[in-house]
């Protein structure tokens, strides 16, 4: 009998550990920001404006990554910015995941009119350009942390819905689902105890990816000044400010950009890594 056992090599856990390590650093920074940040992220000191990072000539001790044009410490702002990034990632990620996955499961398993309604809704939703949609939405409901999260959930649930629906459709064709029907399970029970465990690895990988996307969207909204109030440091806001002085002080732009990049990359890799590591079928 031909089967796939052993055909899938378990990949080295390096990406799981590296991405996990970076995310742990970001999480610690977010939780303990007031304790570990060397300076007040909002304190301006024009005498110390545009100090370069520590290895360049003219650097001041205590300002490791330099300061921006208002003399605020870049490192401290990065650390405090992790708070907003993580809150948005967690709340918006879980929100999109719950709504999108539930609708996707229902559409893929129950089919019929539920599927027709949900699928049409997804099609219509996806026809809007997402960022424009977010900007319009926030213009209507006002700026602020809650608005950013609501906007991400409202826009991105379709990503979960589509993928989870397709995977559920696949699984529903399998004989183990028919077998559950023969065993007399209710449809709800079949969906939750038979199909969901098989769709869960996909959901977890997608959730991690979605958290990364939420961080990007928040940064973009900060960049166009539609996110949180300006006195709260955010990575997107820092990038926007850094852009104005890129020729005089590149570090104000580059460090938040790198942080953002690493975080988004880590979220995506972490999800894939988890899937490889803990999926009993691939193992």
């Amino acid at each position, binding site marked *: *009998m031909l089967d796939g056992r052993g055909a899938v090599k378990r990949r080295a856990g390096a990406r799981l550990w590296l991405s996990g390590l970076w995310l742990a650093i970001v999480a610690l920074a977010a939780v303990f920001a007031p304790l570990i940040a060397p300076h007040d992220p909002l304190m301006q000191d024009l005498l110390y404006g545009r100090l370069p990072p520590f290895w360049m000539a003219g650097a001041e001790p205590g300002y490791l990554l330099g300061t921006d044009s208002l003399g605020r410490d870049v490192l401290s702002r990065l650390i405090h910015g992790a708070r907003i990034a993580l809150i948005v990632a967690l709340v918006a990620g879980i929100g999109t995941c719950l709504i999108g996955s539930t609708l996707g499961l229902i559409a893929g398993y129950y089919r019929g009119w539920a599927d027709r309604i949900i699928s049409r809704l997804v099609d219509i939703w996806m026809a809007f350009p997402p960022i424009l949609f977010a900007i319009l939405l926030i213009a209507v409901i006002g700026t602020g942390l809650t608005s950013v999260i609501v906007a991400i959930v409202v826009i991105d649930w379709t990503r979960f819905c589509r993928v989870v629906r397709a995977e559920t459709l696949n699984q529903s064709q399998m004989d183990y689902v028919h077998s559950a*029907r023969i065993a*007399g399970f209710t449809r709800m029970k079949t969906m939750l105890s038979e199909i969901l465990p098989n769709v869960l690895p996909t959901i977890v990988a997608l959730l991690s990816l979605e958290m990364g996307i939420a961080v990007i969207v928040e940064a973009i909204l900060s960049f166009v000044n539609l996110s949180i109030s300006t006195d709260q440091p955010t990575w997107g806001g820092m990038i926007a400010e850094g852009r104005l002085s890129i020729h005089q002080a590149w570090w104000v732009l580059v460090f938040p950009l790198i942080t953002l990049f690493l975080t988004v990359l880590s979220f995506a890799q972490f999800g894939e890594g988890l899937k490889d590591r803990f999926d009993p079928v691939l193992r």
Partner: protein
Amino acid sequence: MTDALYRIEGLRVEVADQTRKPLFGAAPRLRILDDISFSIERRSVLGIVGGSGSGKTTLGRTLVRLVEPTAGTLIFDGQDVTQLSDDAMRPLRQRIQLIFQDPMSALNPRLTIGRIIAAPLRAKTSDPRVAAALDNVGLPRGFAGRYPHELSGGQRQRVGIARAIALRPDFIVADEIVSGLDVSSQAQVLTLLANLVKDLGLTLAFISHDLSVIRRLCDRVIVLQKGKIVEDQPVADLFTSPSHEYTRQLLNSIPEPDPSQRW
């Protein structure tokens, strides 16, 4: 009439043929089973034989109410089950089981063998019936903690059998369950099924394309060809006096051990 557990009358099954669906309008109907009538005696083994694609699996799935019949009546133990809704069917489900042809797809890849067997019983994996079912099919009890992908094809097939018999059903449809097994495992599974029929008063519909297996186990045989019954006979008569040309072809294709043959 004698004591029939399951009576099937004028059964027809059609599916929508999506490959030939016109751009507008409904897809044409593809007839898979047509005018199928037979009955299964209590405590007997009915063999269902036929070539690949003759509709055996479809018939088996219709008997357990997985496939909706287009026309005809299914009467199980005196009750018309043709039109029963899922909810109305539920109390009967325990009594009618199916062992699937493809053992990989039939076992949930993310549940352990123990849970796969225990779930239809609504029991915990530690339930003695789980261990007993594994014993019955000749699998070590330690397999309860394994996942389906850690088993060989033949072992998975036995898990499917264990799951069905653990429920102590009245009627089992077994769809080509020995095709993936080696000869000695085949003999073991066939003996097991024969004993269950004897000891538990089980009634069995045994689907196979292998007439030598049918001969060992079955009391009566129906032969399917292109969705129609072309032969319905007690097993002894089938082998001595086949009435249909197709049956004769099938019989001729059984490899008979011939000691006089020179190599």
